């Protein structure tokens, strides 16, 4: 929903002539809910940018936020929403800044003059400001979603390093919660490293796993079976007392898979197996 050419013309002139007063009271209105987390100078700068963009897009005739003429205004709003989202402001704190223009308009318009045209214009202006606020809100939400998905991706890469402990022994320390997506990544990384380093032993250390439920156990078991198919043996280590109790309570069977309390025990077990293999070959 846009404004007619006359409405936007009148609004632009109004904002232009009282530029200083409008931005000042706009900044004041926006500052209150932020409780001093942005300095007044910063806020004034943001408000002035917005003011300029709004006036420019009003000057181009009938206002329409989706039109090409409003590209600069949209960019300014997106910038504002992005910086607020990245600095940890809430959605309300972001959109209130845009809605501050309503308050500023009241200060420069003579609402008690009895001119019905003024009220109609004010109503139209409010509709426009609502539109700007919604747009800022959506940009804010989008930025937050991007942030979250970026972080999830980083976590996925961060939390799954496969380390070589010894000649023929690799270890993967699992940290955090193990969902299907991460389990898949862990599984692939581990199996690929087994092939690359030609290591017949892999240690899956679950010291950093907060909870082991049937699903997590299922993922670990699958990894072990896949490694066996490829000709490598897995040892599970770092089982904390509490987790051992949970595993038994849930009735999870690890079968003939070697489980050790600590990574050190697991490494000793692997080295002993390698030694046995070596001796067997010599004899």
């Amino acid at each position, binding site marked *: 929903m846009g404004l007619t050419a006359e409405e936007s013309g009148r609004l632009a002139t109004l904002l232009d002539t009282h530029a200083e007063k409008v931005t000042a009271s706009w900044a004041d209105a926006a500052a209150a809910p932020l409780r001093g987390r942005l300095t007044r100078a910063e806020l004034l700068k943001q408000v002035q940018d917005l003011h300029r963009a709004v006036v420019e897009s009003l000057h181009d005739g009938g206002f329409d936020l989706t039109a090409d003429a409003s590209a600069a205004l949209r960019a300014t709003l997106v910038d504002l929403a992005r910086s607020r989202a990245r600095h940890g402001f809430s959605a309300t704190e972001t959109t209130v800044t845009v809605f501050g223009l309503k308050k500023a308009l009241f200060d420069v318009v003579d609402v008690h003059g009895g001119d019905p045209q003024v009220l109609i214009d004010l109503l139209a202006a409010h509709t426009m400001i609502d539109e700007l606020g919604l747009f800022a809100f959506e940009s804010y939400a989008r930025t937050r979603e991007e942030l979250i998905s970026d972080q999830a991706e980083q976590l996925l890469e961060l939390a799954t390093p496969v380390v070589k402990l010894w000649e023929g022994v690799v270890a993967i320390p699992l940290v955090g919660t193990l969902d299907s997506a991460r389990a898949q990544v862990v*599984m*692939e990384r581990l*199996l*690929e490293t*087994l*092939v690359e380093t*030609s*290591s*017949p032993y892999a240690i899956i250390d679950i010291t950093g796993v907060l909870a082991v439920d049937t699903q997590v156990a299922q993922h670990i078991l*699958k990894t072990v*079976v*896949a*490694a*066996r*198919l*490829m*000709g*490598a043996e897995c040892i599970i280590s770092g089982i904390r007392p509490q987790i051992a109790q949970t595993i038994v309570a849930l009735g999870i069977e690890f079968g003939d898979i070697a489980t050790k309390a600590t990574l050190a025990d697991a490494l000793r077990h692997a080295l002993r197996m390698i030694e046995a*293999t070596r001796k*067997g*070959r010599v*004899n």
Partner: protein
Amino acid sequence: MERVPVLKIGDILLVSIQVDMQDQTALALQEDLADRIVATGCHGVIIDITGLDIVDSFVGRMLSSIASISRVLDAETVVVGMRPAVAITLVELGLSLDGIRTALNVERGMELLALARAAEPDDTGFDLGLDLDGFGSPATP
């Protein structure tokens, strides 16, 4: 029809599967391998499946039957070089290669076979002459 070559290295027969396995190819491989085991008297078979992108139930069954045939002819079978993606798929499908030994690569496979061979009782250790000497002679009173 494509044939899979069977190479002899010392006491081991090496089969490297590089082509998509069809019914005919699989049957021919089983026959070739059985013939070669008997002809060469080898005691180990290594099947390298590095070149296989897909291992389905058909290939799994083929590997199982090759292992069984070899075992009947006193040869141990090791499947080597299974790719991670293949292993994951097999697990997800719930297929297991029962009765098949696996190793990461050909080198490890040869080690495994050497180990299995060493664990077996040494067939040259029996002193057959001792029994034969007493065979047919009159029992001591």
